[in-house]
């Protein structure tokens, strides 16, 4: 599936993956095509094991694809190339810092590799995140560890941020602090964020665009608002022997006696009238949450694939 995300206010690509595939013994990433426009926040949503982390690691050159090409900020990406990484900040929940060393030591180490390191901003983040510069990593809580790593990423002022599950395991306050900081980062319109999570609420909060990925395939991609506008839940009260009219994207989710609940992924204003004309009473047309849309998309995709 080809996924080209447009953003009218932007020009140029921040990153692209073309026809990227990668096979492991028990998992395959299949022909991923992604183009991230500069200045957008793209949420990558998928269940555990869907291929989010593999996609991000390929984008960072940590994993080499079996086929396809990858570039970021106009430069090729592979394990043999380092140039693009000067302007990319990568965070992964699986990433660890050196346990015996302090946050300050890590700041010094990262600063030595980045001419763009902003020391003042780094110290602002230390204060904002409530971190202590001389504290050793081994004594940090999960939230402090995540914040420390984000500090090391953000203080480089990267043009592209690749964040793999950055809010995983955080308490609500820590999550709020992290998301608030990310929101302030995207005020700079030239910066792009690719953000993965299986928590749709986090993604919905900060993303302009959404990509759904399941079992190694991109199954849907669009602007967040388009997703929310197109997907509706329709509740109908139907007479005996009622037959559903042909409406593109309409799928029965549940039924109880005369009540039918449908999900619709191509909602048009005239759809309720068409359903009413078929003899049904439209009880409600409701918006769906991103989580509900995600689940419906995954289940429809699996049904179509016969899984």
């Amino acid at each position, binding site marked *: 599936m080809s996924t080209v995300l447009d953003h009218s206010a932007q020009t140029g690509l921040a990153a692209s993956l073309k026809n990227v595939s990668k096979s492991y013994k028990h998992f395959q990433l299949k022909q991923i095509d992604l183009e991230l426009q500069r200045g957008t926040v793209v949420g990558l949503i998928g269940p555990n094991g869907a291929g989010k982390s593999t996609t991000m690691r390929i984008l*960072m050159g940590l*994993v080499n694809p079996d086929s396809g090409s990858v570039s970021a900020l106009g430069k090729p990406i592979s394990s043999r190339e380092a140039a693009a*990484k000067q302007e990319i900040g990568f965070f992964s929940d*699986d*990433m*660890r810092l050196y346990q015996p*060393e302090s946050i300050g030591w890590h700041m010094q*180490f990262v600063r030595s*590799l980045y001419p763009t390191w902003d020391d003042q901003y780094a110290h602002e983040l230390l204060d904002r995140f409530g971190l202590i510069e001389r504290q050793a990593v081994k004594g940090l809580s999960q939230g402090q560890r995540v914040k420390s790593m984000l500090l090391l990423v953000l203080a480089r002022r990267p043009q592209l941020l690749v964040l793999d599950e950055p809010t995983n395991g955080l308490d609500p306050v820590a999550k709020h602090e992290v998301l608030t900081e990310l929101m302030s980062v995207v005020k700079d319109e030239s910066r792009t964020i690719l953000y993965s999570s299986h928590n749709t609420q986090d993604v919905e909060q900060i993303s302009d665009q959404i990509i759904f990925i399941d079992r190694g395939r991109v199954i849907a991609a669009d602007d967040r608002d388009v997703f929310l506008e197109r997907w509706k839940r329709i509740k109908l009260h139907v007479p005996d022997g009622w037959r559903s009219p042909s409406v593109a994207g309409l799928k029965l989710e549940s039924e109880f006696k005369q009540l039918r609940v449908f999900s619709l992924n191509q909602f048009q204003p005239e759809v309720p009238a068409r359903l009413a004309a078929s003899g049904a009473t439209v009880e409600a047309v409701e918006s769906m949450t991103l989580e509900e849309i995600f689940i419906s998309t995954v289940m429809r995709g699996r049904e179509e694939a016969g899984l």
Partner: protein
Amino acid sequence: MNTQAIGILFLKDLFLSRRHLFAYFAAGMVSSVLTCIPDSTVSFVGFLLMITVAIAAGIHLIGTLLLGESLGQTRMFVMSLPVSLLDYSLGKIAVVLTTYLVPWTAMLVCCTICTFVLPWAKHGSAIVLPLVFLFLLCGFTIQLVTAVVTESLGWTICVMVAGNVLLNVFLMKVMSLPEIVAAKQSDVLMWPPIVVQILVVESLIIIGGLTAALFFQTRKRDLI
């Protein structure tokens, strides 16, 4: 290749291993001094300690600096920085080798000096030192290749154990060669052809091992 990045990675690992480095250096010095004491039991204990320090330092440094980065998931952090696989590999193999060579060189130099300075030591016995120390370095480089290829501490330990057994066979066979026995007893340092041949073979294994380690490390497709 980014020499600045390689230098930074090298210094980072050198700093992280500073405590181990000091400990192995100190243990190496103590064991070499014991080797030079004119009491056969103490000197033998010193020799055993020296071999133990060399083997333990090798496996420990490979475990912490090379395999530990993968097992502890810090490699992902390092590789997310602007370093290429070649930069990472060169920095890593250089630092593992350097940290090993610190106690190795200290022990070799200390024993060599003792052989020439102490009045009861025969100068000819100094030929044993390069033979044994290059054998230890051979074992280390083969462990390094194993660690790079398998990324497994278990396999690396297996190779270390095999190397340890081979060291005993080496000592038993080589040290009983008539040319070497004669050279050891001499008051003058001599280099019989067999010794030179063994040293050349050991050197070639070391160079081959380091080249293979770098080759396999830089050919890795996935780093995590």
